[in-house]
């Protein structure tokens, strides 16, 4: 698999475990990111609706999403901490040389994340005792803080793709750092919007999909209708937007990272009239096995006319480009992402059509089956998008300036494999427990919904052990809450 790289320079034996560890932890964390970035916004929309129209169903939904968010955010915080440590534990070479060039984006992210953590704490823990509208408005800046945090992370990643904002001295060390140039790199804009829209789409489709499952199982009440409609509408509205943004992102890659583009599209030789391959596999000799070939299309997509010249992988030495296997991985990830995106457009159109025709949700069960799958498909595309950008950049960690093998830690491969195994066990346990907890919450809510009047079954003491301001509660939890959220419930 790594044969080309071995020819180029002996890759250190710790490279593989370091990459696997990074891929595993980042790939796990990224599944929570859509909910960290976009779920607060979607919940706030539902919350607003609940307060504005005095709608108890909407408020119940917003509260339940908050309860899930409380657990999800916690797991996201700690798995995110791991990533910042891994930059030092696995890639000290990159941080040592480039830390002061591109680190500021992370600086912005750290503070934005601080703000987000504060606001989300107030929001998640303010439901009981804050005044309803005060509570809402304290949570309202949450989406902004989340967007700011994403700004920092994407600034750092896009810098790795199109590094700039520095000069190199005689020894190859960066000097004359210009921070603004280093943050606003050519790939920053396309990557940022592509990412943000993807996060909102994913959160919307996943949350909507959960209620689509309930709908399919015959729970066609207002609760499920609202829980489906609001997040699904947000996601469906953004799907065509993402189509345009994603397309322009691909074209930005074509212009700014031509070799990565060649890998994602399996272009071997620089040429005009380049065909597009749907899937297929690149062989070491440049031929392509399998896949569907569409003549001229790649050139047309890249430059709107068949005569557009597309740079091929062979434009750079074998040691400076992804291997055949890596190119195939990036290509498949890219194609899966585009395929799913296109299918989601059809789903959004279906939804819009039904709405225009009879102002109602589509009646077909197939629509809800697809909607139920859309969330999972979106999570898959998030993984694919990330694989495309990371694997497509190989063998560079900083495009054209530092190889992954130069950045890797000196720690012995054996230690890294042991750590990798340990981390896998920990993550499987944590994510498994997280999933189980959320499913358990769902079961409890369903039981309560199906047997009206049951919530009183719980002892108020277990529910709310302490009163406000240190006054011991003697009259049970329900009274206090009735007083603070009066008229709402």
């Amino acid at each position, binding site marked *: 698999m790594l044969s080309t790289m071995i020819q180029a320079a002996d890759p250190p034996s710790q490279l593989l475990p370091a990459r696997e560890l990074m891929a595993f932890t980042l790939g796990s964390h990224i599944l929570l990111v859509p909910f960290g970035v976009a779920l607060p916004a979607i919940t706030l929309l539902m919350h607003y609706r609940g307060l504005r129209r005095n709608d108890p169903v909407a408020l119940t939904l917003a*509260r339940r999403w908050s309860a899930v968010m*409380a657990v999800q955010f916690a797991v996201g915080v700690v798995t995110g901490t791991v990533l*910042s440590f891994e930059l030092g534990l696995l890639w000290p070479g990159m941080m040592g040389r480039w830390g002061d060039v591109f680190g*500021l984006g992370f600086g912005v992210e750290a503070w934005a994340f601080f703000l987000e953590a504060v606001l989300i704490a107030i929001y998640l823990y303010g439901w009981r005792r804050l005044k309803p509208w005060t509570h809402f408005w304290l949570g309202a800046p949450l989406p902004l803080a989340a967007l700011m945090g994403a700004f920092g992370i994407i600034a750092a990643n896009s810098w790795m793709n199109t590094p700039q904002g520095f000069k190199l001295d005689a020894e190859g060390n960066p000097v004359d750092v210009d921070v603004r140039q280093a943050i606003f790199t050519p790939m920053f804009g396309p990557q940022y919007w592509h990412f943000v829209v993807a996060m909102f789409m994913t959160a919307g489709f996943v949350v909507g999909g959960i209620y689509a499952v309930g709908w399919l199982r015959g729970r066609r009440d207002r609760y499920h209708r609202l829980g489906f409609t609001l997040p699904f509408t947000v996601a469906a509205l953004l799907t065509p937007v993402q189509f345009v943004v994603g397309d322009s992102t691909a074209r930005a890659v074509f212009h700014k990272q031509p070799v990565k583009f060649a890998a994602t599209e399996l272009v071997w030789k620089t040429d005009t009239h380049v065909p597009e391959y749907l899937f297929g596999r690149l062989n070491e000799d440049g031929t392509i096995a399998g896949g569907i070939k569409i003549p001229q299309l790649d050139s047309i997509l890249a430059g709107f006319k068949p005569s557009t010249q597309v740079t091929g992988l062979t434009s750079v030495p074998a040691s400076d480009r992804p291997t055949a296997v890596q190119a195939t991985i990036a290509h498949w990830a890219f194609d899966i992402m585009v395929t799913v995106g296109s299918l989601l457009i059809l789903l959004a159109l279906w939804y819009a059509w039904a709405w225009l025709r009879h102002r109602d949700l589509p009646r077909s069960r197939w629509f809800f089956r697809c909607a139920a799958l859309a969330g999972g498909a979106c999570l898959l595309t998030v993984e694919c998008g990330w694989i495309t950008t990371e694997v497509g950049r190989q063998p560079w960690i900083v495009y054209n300036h530092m190889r992954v093998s130069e950045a890797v830690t*000196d720690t012995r491969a054996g230690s890294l494999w042991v750590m990798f195994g340990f981390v896998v066990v920990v993550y499987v346990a944590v994510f498994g427990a997280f999933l189980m907890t959320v499913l358990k*919450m769902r079961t409890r809510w369903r039981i309560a919904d199906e047997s009206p009047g049951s919530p009183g079954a*719980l002892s108020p003491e277990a529910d709310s052990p302490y009163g406000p301001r240190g006054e011991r509660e003697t009259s049970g939890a329900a009274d206090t809450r009735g007083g603070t959220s009066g008229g709402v419930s």
Partner: protein
Amino acid sequence: MAEVVAWVLVVAIAAYACAGGTDYGAGFWDLLAGGAERGKPVRRLIDHAMAPVWEVNNVWLIFVVVVMWTGFPTVFQAVFEAMWLPLALAVVGTVLRGAGFALRKPARRLARRRIAGVTFAVASLITPFFFGTVLGGIASGRVAVGTPASADAWANPTSLLTGLLAVAATAFLGAVFLWCDARRFGADDLLDYFRLRALLAFGAVVVLALVGLPVTRDDARYVWEGLSGGLGLAAVILSAVCGVATVLLLVRRIHRWSRWTAVGSVALTVGAWGLAQRPYMLPTSLTVTEAAGAAHTLRWLGIVTLVAIVLVGPALVLLFRLDNLGDLEGLGDTDTRAAPAPGDDL
């Protein structure tokens, strides 16, 4: 500017030691709270007190790491290469700590709550210990640019002592805060419980500090001298005064100010370490000036920090104010309308 950013780093470490430390301390007492029935009120108080703020407290750690690699990339590289194992274990510890805590509360089965709780509590012990060993290794001059990872970097007398001291300090902070929380939430039965534990933890800190005097004298010569003279000594004395004041407040059962003096003693200890290390970032091989990253970046890091203080500062104050007023409380089953599921036994 490098000096300023270095102090931002020290302040951030101190903030994490105090804020994160309090939560680790809560985990320490959670571990020692006894069986499910006996420890129930203690754990309930810990859950209730920690839940709204621990994630925010954890962000200080991320901030420390980010300021370090942006401001002092070579130091970051050197520390993370030499201290590979303790840092890796510490970060896995933060995952287990956070996940264990967050997953314990929604669990409605005793068995699950036990697993999550033990994970949370044990990880709360391990994590500060390993962070402590890293600081000890740096202070004793065992990390220089290019030092390969080795056990000696963190498994040496100074490191082990600093690790234990970190655990004792978190236990002290945790107990003092929980003592105040017990009063805040009217859990009168736990007042003396945590008061006693705060005093015991303080005793442990004092004993470890006294043991440390001869041990670190030769092992961490430069920092030892920095701490026994000049500004470093002044900070140590102030820290000791804060510690003694906390004890007096505890003995006389005065809750007011006790949290501040406890935080003061820990923060000043970190500050004293910062003062003692001057002008070195890695004693005695790399000074702050030598370690500093690009000047332009440092200036911007300063600006970003200022903007953040303006934005995050008030938000933090608001959070802790609301928390203090008892306005923050997790959603309960009645809020989300949940009913017991089959198999739930809590």
